[in-house]
């Protein structure tokens, strides 16, 4: 299953994705997160040390988290601000922490946290606005290292066809 989380209020991106996905055999679920209540991560570390795997913030993010761990791919649609994802897009990533554990290991020459779940999801970004695209690509490559997965690429909302060609 492919999980697509739209953090923007613009449903036309989801619509365009739905339209494009009609012609493929991909099973995808689109979550409209702009209508959900999703807080920022408060860094409490409860998801590692008090209630392992569970976030202490009881809001709508739990719905996304539960789907995420069964997904093969996660796509985040985000508005951008200050050259990067806006806060709503970034919060989706900050709140992912429960999929990792407190335990540490080396992967190659760098430290990483051990994954909580066996199955991993690769991550793609679809952005609106005018970010520093090269940086966003670098960041997604780097961020996915933490989830033992890989970047599926970074696409503007006008490149839906290209993004969908990476969904399989």
């Amino acid at each position: 299953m492919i999980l697509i989380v739209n953090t923007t209020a613009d449903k036309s991106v989801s619509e365009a994705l739905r339209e494009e996905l009609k012609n493929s055999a991909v099973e995808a679920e689109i979550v409209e997160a702009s209508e959900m209540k999703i807080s920022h991560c408060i860094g409490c570390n409860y998801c590692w040390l008090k209630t392992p795997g569970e976030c202490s913030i009881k809001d709508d993010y739990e719905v996304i988290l539960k789907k995420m761990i069964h997904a093969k791919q996660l796509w985040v649609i985000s508005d951008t601000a200050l050259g990067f994802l806006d806060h709503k897009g970034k919060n989706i990533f900050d709140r992912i922490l429960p999929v990792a554990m407190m335990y540490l290991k080396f992967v190659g020459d760098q430290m990483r946290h051990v994954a909580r779940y066996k199955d991993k999801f690769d991550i793609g970004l679809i952005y609106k606005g005018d970010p520093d695209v090269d940086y966003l690509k670098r960041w997604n490559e780097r961020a996915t290292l933490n989830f033992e997965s890989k970047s599926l690429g970074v696409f503007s909302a006008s490149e839906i066809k290209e993004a969908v060609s990476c969904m399989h």
Partner: protein
Amino acid sequence: MHALIINGSPRVKKFSNTDKILDKFEAGMAEKGATFTRCEVSDRKQWDDMRKAFGENKNILIAIPLYVENIPGLLIEFLETLTPKNDGTEIAFILQGGFAEGVQLRCGEAYLKILTEKLGCKYAGTLVKGDNFGIRFMDEKTVQKITGAYTDMGREYAECGNFFSEKCAKFTGPEIFPVHVRLLVGIIFKTLAKSGFKKAAKDWGCTKPLNYRPYK
């Protein structure tokens, strides 16, 4: 020199590692006669004052814990509300994280240059250092020891107004650990660190194993 200092951590002041780092850093600044005003992004009640102070100050220092290779979502939310300046204001950063190697912070550091430009300010460098996750769990004496090194960096900032010196670059420590250190630390991760984490969890009232999977 007077600086506006923003703690960019979403953690409440009492538990924030950045807060403890800043205590030491500011002590160094004060020794050199510099003054500062500190505010915390975790406290939304301060945001109006922080916006005003951002407009008024020419030397700004933002201290940031790395959150998934970049700045925390809450800090982005605050920064989104600022009006870019274009008046020669300089922003310097303290970037700190949990992982120990310098290389872990470079992607976040690269963004801080982009951010500064977007805010219409001049980049005054970033003081980069990892291995700070444990501060929250340490006793007072160990915290003093770990964060103490930031006092000298506070002196440096008060004198230079930036983090461009060789001394600041060296402060980061190794970019990656040599193989023999990785082997040793890898063993520690599987033994001492593991039992340390289990003990911390027990102290916090955790009743489940740390590898518990609630959603499977």
